[in-house]
């Protein structure tokens, strides 16, 4: 590995690891409503919000109530966004000459669902579709709200694991408010200033028209980019201001902004593992999940960089070695300013974290590089994952390993002192079934229907299958990044992907919250030598293997006919 990539990766992981503990502690204090540094600023605003909305912050909710509020909040957000999008021609900052893509009912509903589920799947190009009003009041606001709602659910889930003999998981409105005031707004403010310093625009001017060196006219899109840019990463949403997303120089001008944006994505989900450890009073349990995440993350990073740096073997005889004069490897679809190293980092971060803010064209990755990204999506966004949602994804996926390992030590299975009985297992399996059901079924429908196949405008064969599989995987994972190549702005794809996005958001959060509610009601069994240690190296290894195995077993046939076949046939 070249020194630049290696340094970048080590530095990235070191910063994340160093910040997990303080950030995790901060999140714990925020959500247990104990004093924090921001209280003097935020407490008055919080009180005001509760007075206006008539929320009693001391009333706690059961798992069912919490889930209901979450779903309700998501639906209201969707409708609101839909209205804004459909009416954008009548709202300020609309430039009819540039915003030429029609927001048809199916596209608008797709976008509305996409942003209110943090998927931010974009079947449109930002600069030629969205007015500044839509970008700011519609999309940017949803980035904050949906991100905060996800964090709230994650926190409620942790409470379920931590509490005993309790019927409730906290108050959704309080968690939502605190996630916004104490976490996302201050974080976004700091981040946006850093981005503006690096050259990300933040203005409301119409697009600039410039004359290029060849004397041709060039329209340069701009706008309030920095505001959206930071929260799309911090809230693990990922929908870009521009069509090129993180590859666009105004979104991601320098290697430093790329690095900072990746940190913004990973920090909060990573810190939540520590919040979990603190809230259950066993920090090691949190660290175990963290190191399993880091392991899977690093493996992905190493593989993707390796496959991309190795380049395309079809270029026989071409020098693909990296040297001082060239980055070498497979540079197709990658930005020169990020190189293979920065592109691989972003690809792995975004594919793992339900964030679609890619800075390279994943469709142009080598088949095996792309396979790793696809596997990241299929793993279930549990390596850091979405904000709040990543943590419960990890625990719910880990539960199968816990169940089997628990039996193998001769006890009825338990995790963190709580028993996994028939009721809990139902939720675990509902959770586990959702992804294969939606991803595989819809991919199957798409490849066997005319409407689905008509989206394959650039590629057919195994690569086409991968594109479709990637699209539904990404939507279910609430990730939103696309493999591109697929013409997705059709009624068929707009509606089916929207459905899959909703399933990925609510179809997972509901069983997770139900599971947390069951755990909260239980009494803790004290651990002893006879208890399965879920914070040991051997459990970590078991967990890692079982996460990979369960994913591989579910999707192997599909993967074999997609990327694996492509690799075998074309060698790329």
């Amino acid at each position: 590995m070249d020194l630049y990539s290696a340094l970048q990766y080590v530095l990235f992981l070191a910063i994340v690891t160093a910040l997990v503990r303080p950030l995790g502690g901060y999140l714990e204090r925020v959500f247990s409503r104990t004093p924090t540094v921001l209280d003097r600023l935020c407490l008055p605003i919080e009180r005001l919000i509760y007075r206006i909305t008539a929320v009693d912050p001391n009333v706690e909710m059961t798992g069912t109530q919490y889930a209901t509020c979450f779903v309700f909040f998501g639906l209201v957000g969707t409708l609101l966004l839909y209205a804004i999008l459909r009416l954008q021609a009548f709202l300020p900052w609309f430039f009819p000459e540039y915003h030429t893509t029609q927001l048809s009912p199916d596209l608008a509903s797709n976008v509305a669902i996409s942003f209110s589920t943090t998927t931010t799947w974009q079947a449109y190009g930002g600069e030629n579709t969205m007015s500044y009003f839509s970008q700011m009041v519609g999309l940017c606001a949803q980035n904050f709200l949906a991100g905060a709602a996800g964090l709230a659910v994650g926190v409620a889930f942790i409470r379920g694991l931590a509490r005993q003999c309790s019927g409730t998981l906290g108050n959704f409105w309080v968690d939502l408010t605190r996630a916004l005031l104490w976490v996302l707004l201050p974080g976004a403010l700091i981040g946006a200033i850093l981005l503006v310093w690096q050259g990300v625009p933040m203005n409301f001017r119409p697009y600039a028209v410039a004359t290029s060196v060849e004397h041709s006219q060039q329209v340069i899109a701009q706008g309030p980019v920095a505001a959206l840019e930071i929260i799309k990463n911090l809230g693990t949403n990922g929908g870009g201001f521009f069509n090129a997303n993180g590859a666009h120089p105004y979104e991601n001008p320098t290697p430093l902004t790329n690095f900072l944006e990746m940190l913004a994505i990973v920090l909060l989900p990573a810190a939540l593992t520590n919040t979990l450890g603190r809230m259950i009073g066993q920090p090691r349990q949190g660290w175990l999940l963290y190191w399993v995440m880091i392991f899977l993350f690093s493996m992905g990073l190493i593989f993707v960089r390796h496959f991309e740096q190795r380049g395309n073997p079809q270029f026989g005889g071409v020098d693909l070695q990296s040297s001082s004069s060239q980055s070498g490897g497979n540079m197709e679809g990658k930005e020169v300013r990020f190189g293979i190293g920065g592109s691989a980092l972003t690809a792995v971060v975004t594919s793992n974290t339900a964030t679609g803010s890619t800075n390279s064209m994943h469709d142009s990755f080598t088949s095996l590089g792309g396979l790793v990204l696809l596997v990241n999506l299929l793993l279930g966004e549990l390596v850091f994952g979405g904000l709040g949602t990543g943590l419960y994804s990890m625990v719910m996926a880990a539960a199968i390993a816990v169940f089997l390992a628990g039996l193998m030590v001769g006890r009825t299975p338990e995790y963190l002192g709580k028993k996994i009985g028939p009721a809990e297992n139902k939720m675990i399996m509902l959770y586990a079934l959702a992804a294969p059901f939606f991803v595989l079924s819809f991919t199957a429908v798409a490849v066997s229907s005319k409407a689905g196949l008509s989206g394959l405008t650039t590629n057919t064969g195994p690569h086409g299958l991968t594109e479709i599989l990637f699209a539904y995987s990404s939507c279910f994972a609430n990730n939103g990044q696309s493999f591109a190549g697929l013409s997705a702005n059709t009624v068929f794809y707009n509606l089916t992907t929207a459905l899959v996005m909703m399933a990925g958001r609510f179809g997972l959060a509901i069983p997770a919250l139900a599971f947390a509610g069951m755990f909260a009601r239980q009494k803790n069994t004290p651990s002893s030598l006879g208890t399965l240690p879920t914070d040991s190296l051997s459990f970590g290894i078991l967990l890692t293997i079982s996460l990979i195995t369960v994913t591989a077993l579910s999707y192997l046939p599909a993967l074999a006919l997609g990327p694996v076949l492509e690799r075998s046939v074309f060698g790329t």
Partner: protein
Amino acid sequence: MAKKKKAIWEWKIVGRAIWDALLKLNPHKMMGNPVMFVVEIGSVITTALLFKGGSAFKFNLQITLWLWFTVLFANFAEAMAEGRGKAQADTLRKARAETIANRILPDGKTEQVPSSKLRSGDVVMVSASEFIPSDGEILEGVASVDESAITGESAPVIREAGGDRSAVTGGTRVLSDWLKIKITSNPGETFLDRMIALVEGAERQKTPNEIALNILLAGLTIIFLLAVVTLQPFAIYSGSPQTVFVLVSLLVCLIPTTIGGLLSAIGIAGMDRLVQHNVLAMSGRAVEAAGDVNTLLLDKTGTITLGNRQAAEFVSAPGITAAQMADAAQLSSLADETPEGRSIVVLAKERYGLRGRDLAAHEAQFIPFTAQTRMSGVNLDGREIRKGAVDAISKYLSEHGTGLPKEVQSAVETIARSGGTPLVVAENRRALGVIHLKDIVKGGMKDRFDQLRAMGIKTVMITGDNPLTAAAIAREAGVDDFLAEATPKDKMDLIRNEQKQGKLVAMTGDGTNDAPALAQADVGVAMNTGTQAAKEAGNMVDLDSNPTKLIEVVEIGKQLLMTRGALTTFSISNDVAKYFAIIPAMFAGTFPVLNALNIMGLQTPQSAVLSAVIFNALIIIALIPLALRGVKYRPMGAAALLRRNLWIYGFGGIVVPFVGIKLIDMVITRAGMA
């Protein structure tokens, strides 16, 4: 531990199991097992398609047959597990055979009625060599009873009215004397009936963990169903559609048939293992709870120590020779038939060479122990020898103007502090010395408790002794904690307290006053010699009435859960190899490059699919002995157990099918089957 090892493959049981396996094909019965039900549906589909004709008939026929074999093998496993219980139930049924009972009418007359007509509350008279017609409580009489029909123990036991040995069981036989019994159960609800139902598994209900595991297996089955059903559209898209036979084969290979086929056999066999240890669990739930137990309450007497205290040492007072002391101690105990008394005589003989003497030649007058004096002794040739507890003797001495010498006093304290019981011996109102009675801890108990500790189980000794004595024995036996001067209420409080901390508690008990605690405990093992109340309160009955067996019960519970976990892990790990066999076989025809995935080098696509299916069916048969016997249990901590089982069943589960499928492939290609 009277472990009766039975051979797994007994011809009689196998024969019946084969027939039962066929009967179990009834879809209504199969529905209880979602995994195997899917296999049965698959088999039906392929059978139907077989008759539609088409190409590759030989291959399709073989696939279909092996699919049916898979279902039959799973049914056979379950039938095998049930078979042993059924054989035992047959023996028990013979004991239940109709007998004629002598019912005593309210007016005192007796009438002869068939035992099946007896109701709870009836009173019957049973004489020597008659069968006891139903469960009951003895009202009058003492008799020796042959309970071998239930316990398998041929030595007769004494049953008598009053106390903790007053319960009798229907189907046992009075050997001598007679008993007047009040019947306590109605027909069909007797202990024997329940026992037959239990060993036969007729009312077997799925236990919570079994249900949870079944949910997991059903979920995995659906996931694989989705993977296989959607594979066909992908295959068509790729220009390589598959036949239903191949798709069903892939599905059956992927879904966890190994554990699905063996799951109920594991549960039945677990209960059966308890029965072989002569323990009857009233519910499977109790067996699972046994695996989870955190705290064991063990009665000191009989479990940790031998039944009784034994004399360990004579300490003589100043001015008294050891021989004098031994002589007096022996004389005072010659007529004392209690085990303590006998142990004093034995000690005098072993240590001081004093033989037993015939006191008939002397004018001996024995003073028996009474609750008032709390002393016993002998008056002999003008000597007045007494022995008794310290306070009793010192009271006796002070009444006559003397007291305990200081040295004797301090000897008494030393003995008491070491956990022993001091008995003071006095002759002619003068203290001669102290007998040190000691609890003898059973051999090997310390190791046992160390193992339990390694398994994370805390042991608490329950005793009526004072705290000092209790502490000393607890230390010697190596238990973690003790409850001294325990009353039934203390026991109850201890259990509640542990449970409040989220712990599961197991205990044994026999007396009526144990009943509430037995009912409160998560695992309550009642002794068969115990009262009816105790037996009804507990969720297990130990027919041997051996309290140490609680430890084995815990081990069997753990073994049951481990077997489930291990075979599930094995089953899922197997899928890796099966994918490598079947996926290249499916697509290598259209995309020869995918043959690179055929890392086993299987001969032809057909032989690859067939080998995977055959392996999948045969592995069920191969694992039946493991399912019935349970995986080997070793007392060790959870971390070590996990590592061990992961290696054997996880890693082994990945490797074994690669070898197995390759071997089968070699065999069937050589045999020309594919």
